[in-house]
């Protein structure tokens, strides 16, 4: 879920922007030119992935897949998500210039942390891989929901109820995302193990 422009307080906006700059710096420094192309095309794939709608109960939600992105790209998930969000702003006017930093941190930071946490599990293979992949997907979405809710709640106490509802809405999405991440990781392990292997071996992508 993006936060629209004009909602958050300056403190939250610029705190988020500063954090995003740190993340972007880290991500870009680790990114060589021979890997840029892979990150660019995977960003495009995730941009498209986030347009995929799946039914969740009576409703219909689009995938976020930030966990998978963190898993495959590591810290490069920061520039990747930043670019995807900027494109969404340009093409659909979701989000915007001033909330770009906050939205990037909301999506990328939980993804990177969840991936760091779950990589050892996924590298073990078998049941541990399934558990790790599920946790990676679910924790990333839970973290994204938590960060978004926190940004709203820190802005004004009037938004606390909206933040709580937002967090609650993330629970079913979290389970579905975990499941999809599990299935996709399983698929990648069968079809193109090198994609996962490179991500897990510390050499993020390519």
């Amino acid at each position, binding site marked *: 879920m993006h936060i*629209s*422009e*004009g*909602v*958050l307080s*300056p403190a939250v*906006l610029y705190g988020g922007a500063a954090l995003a700059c740190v993340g*972007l710096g880290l991500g870009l420094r680790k*990114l060589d*030119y021979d890997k*840029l*192309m*892979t*990150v*660019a*095309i*995977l960003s*495009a*794939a995730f*941009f*498209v*992935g986030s*347009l*995929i*709608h*799946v*039914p969740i*109960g009576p409703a219909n939600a689009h*995938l976020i897949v930030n966990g*998978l992105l963190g898993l495959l790209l590591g810290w490069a998930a920061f*520039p*990747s998500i930043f*670019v*995807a969000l900027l*494109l969404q*702003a*340009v*093409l*659909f*006017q*979701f989000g*915007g*210039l*001033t909330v770009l930093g906050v939205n990037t941190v909301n999506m990328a930071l939980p993804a990177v942390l969840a991936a760091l946490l779950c990589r050892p599990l996924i590298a073990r293979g078998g049941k541990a891989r399934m558990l790790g992949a599920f946790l990676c997907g679910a924790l990333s979405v839970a973290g994204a929901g938590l960060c978004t809710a926190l940004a709203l709640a820190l802005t*004004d*106490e*009037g*938004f606390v*109820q*909206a933040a709580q509802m937002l967090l609650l809405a993330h629970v079913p999405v979290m389970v*579905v995302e975990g*499941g*999809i991440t*599990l*299935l*996709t990781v399983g*698929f*990648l392990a069968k*079809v193109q193990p090198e994609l996962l292997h490179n991500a897990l071996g510390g050499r993020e992508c*390519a």
Partner: protein
Amino acid sequence: MFDEPFAAGTSLIHSLDPRIRLGVAVACSIVCSIVHSLPAALLALGAALVLVCLSRPPLRPLLRRMAVVNIFILFLWLTVPLSQQGNTPVLASYGFFVLTQQGLDLCLLVTVKSNALVLLFLALVATMPTPTLGHAMAQLAVPNKLVFLFLFTYRYVHVIGEEWQRLHNAARLRGFSPRNNLHTYRVAGYILGMVLVRSYERAHRVYEAMLLRGFNGRFTSVSTFQAAPRDALFCCTALTTCVLIMAVDYWEIFCV
């Protein structure tokens, strides 16, 4: 797959230097996002409306974009005025729900600011083609790698989008219809995985092709921008308006 209905045009805004437009958009957005008072926000909304009118956008896409943005705002309207906050004056109460003045004020301010910012973006940034935006970013000291990433992500979003559409069509031809079951999630997960595998392979092919054509890590562009006197005039007018908005905001907060 993704159209840019505002990018093409011959209006005054379209003829301005993209670097100036992007810089002014960033500066004005920052000013607009930090105002605290309704009169200043309304002034910003007025200025943004003038800019949008100057850019002469197609009306239907404009209204559709505005509607999408206001969905989030609507969500806030549904929750915020009804949440209880400390000891603020209560306007009305219906059993469990309590309507407060503070909540209403907050919602109104956020609505005006949000719409002003989106209109500003639509007028100044959405009016340039995405590649132009990338080149303008490169000339405004955005890191080279980030611009590269932005331009190539944009380039391949269309290709990958078509790939996904093809896989989706193939699934539908085999009788796939999304429901609430494991099968649906499995198909979605596998299609996503297939898109990733193909993207990964495509990235390798494209990168090798670029190396063959002598890519050395530097990204050169044939398009050059030239600032004209009217760009300076536009820049000054916009910045003056920003200062005016800040002054009104300061006056409202501290002096009234």
